[in-house]
């Protein structure tokens, strides 16, 4: 630590170069943080998928409906303790650009199925007592400035009402939140009983089911039993774990995302390469000086440590500030991006890898010059 002031003096000798290197490392780590957030956003909550939940949908495609009666039949099967259903409503609030998912559900089994959606007792009671009531995620409520008691008109694109109208009105009776990161807080849930008696056509049919298995280890067997039970009926099913379902869905968005991520990572390393080269160069320019240090009694080891320390100091400070800035940027963008990425945050894993990388980059960049500096013979150095 006694060399700290010496290291600082060395960093300060070419202020412009040091700050340029500093800035490029900083930018590289802002990029790194953003990549982590984008990657998490695109994997669409695989992390929070429940291991004990199965998604059951029509075998041919998810747009085909299943009978309402399947819910009770599945709930009575061995190994299953709860089944609940969803329908894709696909309505528009004011403008198609304001996209967010809306789904009619049965409130009690739905809330039981998803304990991560935290709803206060008051809001829950209000929902159970209001047929036209809807609960919305905290981020969604923030995005449009909705409050409890607001009446929200939604234009249906699929579901016409019995009277031929297409404007459905809902009363916001609750706002759900979650302590868990990665939970989607941009959804809009309303009551299935109201939906079913108001819609024209397809009454008694639902989009897909989510069932809860008693023992997650048996999830695969239970899924197979479900599919077997409905095999050869007009509505065959495909059951899979929620994680597999979400993952398959993320894969539908496709290799575009993996390509973007691959090229971004390539650039991250290019920027670091450039920075590392500059640091090496600055050591090479100081050979004579390092020789002098050795001549006045600094050991090989301490010269080596000092040069390496300088590199690490530079990348670690720049990297940490960069990660900090990317955290600020991600939190700042999280709400405005909620229409595109329902889940957008900087995962702890990315931060930890990032911190390790800030040090690793300094180590790699400083290793060759510091090794050379350590090996340097006084006579050679001073002769230059």
């Amino acid at each position: 630590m006694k060399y700290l002031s010496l290291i600082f003096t060395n960093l300060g000798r070419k202020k412009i170069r040091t700050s340029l290197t500093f800035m490029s490392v900083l930018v590289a780590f802002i990029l790194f943080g953003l990549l982590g957030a984008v990657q998490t956003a695109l994997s669409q909550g695989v992390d929070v998928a429940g291991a004990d939940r199965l998604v059951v949908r029509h075998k041919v495609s998810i747009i085909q409906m299943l009978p309402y009666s399947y819910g009770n039949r599945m709930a009575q099967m061995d190994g299953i303790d709860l089944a609940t259903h969803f329908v894709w409503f696909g309505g528009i609030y004011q403008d198609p650009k304001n996209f967010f998912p809306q789904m009619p559900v049965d409130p009690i089994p739905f809330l039981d199925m998803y304990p991560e959606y935290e709803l206060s007792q008051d809001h829950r009671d209000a929902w159970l007592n209001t047929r036209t009531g809807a609960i919305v995620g905290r981020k969604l409520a923030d995005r449009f400035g909705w409050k409890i008691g607001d009446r929200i008109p939604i234009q249906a694109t699929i579901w016409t009402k019995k009277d031929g109208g297409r404007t459905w009105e809902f009363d916001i009776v609750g706002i759900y939140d979650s302590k868990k990161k990665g939970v989607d807080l941009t959804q809009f849930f309303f009551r299935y009983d109201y939906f079913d008696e108001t819609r024209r056509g397809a009454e008694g049919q639902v989009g897909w089911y989510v069932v809860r298995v008693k023992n997650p280890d048996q999830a695969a067997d239970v899924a197979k039993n479900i599919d077997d039970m409905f095999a050869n009926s007009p509505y065959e099913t495909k059951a899979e774990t929620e994680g597999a379902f979400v993952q398959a869905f993320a894969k539908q968005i496709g290799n575009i995302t993996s390509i973007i991520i691959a090229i971004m990572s390539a650039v991250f390393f290019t920027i670091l390469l450039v920075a590392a080269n500059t640091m090496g160069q600055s050591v090479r320019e100081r050979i004579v000086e390092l020789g002098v240090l050795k001549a006045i009694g600094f050991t090989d080891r301490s010269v080596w440590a000092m040069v390496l320390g300088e590199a690490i100091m530079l990348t670690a400070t720049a990297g940490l500030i960069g990660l900090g800035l990317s955290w600020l940027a991600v939190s700042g963008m999280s709400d405005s991006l909620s229409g595109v990425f329902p889940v957008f945050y900087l995962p702890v894993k990315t931060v930890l890898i990032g911190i390790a990388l800030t040090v690793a980059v300094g180590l790699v960049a400083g290793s060759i010059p510091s090794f050379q500096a350590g090996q340097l013979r006084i006579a050679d150095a001073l002769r230059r």
Partner: protein
Amino acid sequence: MKSISQVIAVIQFAIQTIPQRKASSITTVVGIAGVVAVMIGVFSIALGFQRTMNVAGDESVAMIMRSGSDSEMMSGLTRESTRVIADDVGLARNEQGSLSSAELFVIINLPKRDTGTDANVPLRGVEAQAFNVRGKWKLIEGRAFAWGTNEVVVGRAAAAEFAGLDVGSSIQMGPNKWQVVGIFEESGGISESEIWTDSAVLQPAYHRGDTFQSVYAKLNTADIFPEFKNRLESDPRLDVKVIRQTEYYAEQSGQLSIMIKVLGGFIAFLMALGAVFGAANTMYAAVTSRTREIATLRALGFSGPPIILSVLAESLFLSLLGGAIGATLAYLAMDGYQAATLNWTTFSQVAFAFTVNKQLIIAGLIVAGTIGFVGGLFPAYSASRIPLAAALREN
């Protein structure tokens, strides 16, 4: 005149001595090549997607869906409505009647070839005139499906992207098997991601009764679209929305390409910023290593501006070289690359090829030049300010 010859001499000198500063020059070139390659790469995705969505569109083709629906997927039309539409006076006609096709648009789960995971592949049921409504539609392998049978023809991109769609293979759809009998193309347009069959066969398979989702209609001329639209939308027998085919697909491509452009643009901007710092570093190093040279030039009577220009020229030369390398790499790696993604408005897959065009390459070079210019500016200025006496004494 004198200053111009000075400028030329100094620039020549600066560029000829680049090999002496190999390491730092190469780093700059590599860094800028990376930035340009990524920028072009990201934008080629958006461009390719847009191209696929728009290329096969025809101004004189109108799409009719139920009013209030955003896409074919959500729409629903009765057979009576489709008949009213087919009888409209504005439609082009041939010996078989008016050029209109009532269609069904659904999806089917098929595994992707590369990952083996299920994807929502669009499946379209059409009527006989569908091929005449779409002028660019062409069978490239096998034969057309026979009407009234469980046969399908597959778009070229769909056959490449999803497993089990080769001619001769069959698709299991619930209790039925569907035979693939042909492959078609439509000048690289979105329909090449689809599977086509007879709508009359598809209706019962998807429990659709006697309903359709859209009508594609070819108008006599593109100019009569406004009156055609007006006539149908105000017809009391109908409850429909009329839109040009070109507009419909442009709308759908808007969202995704904006997302790619915003995200890609933002990240490319950050990278460019990083590259500016890198370039500035290199040019400072170049100026430092040439301190004595520059001081000598100044002592010989070369004035400030030619020296500034020489440093800028070197910086521009390196950055444009990097830009050219990056653009070439991006073109080789990305142009024509096949990918598929989800079209959110129809919830189904679109296969498309990344596209690098001339404008994109020029834009990349402009960015490279800008990085070089900005990165060279301050080092150039400081070169012209080198104190003579001290610089000449330095070793």
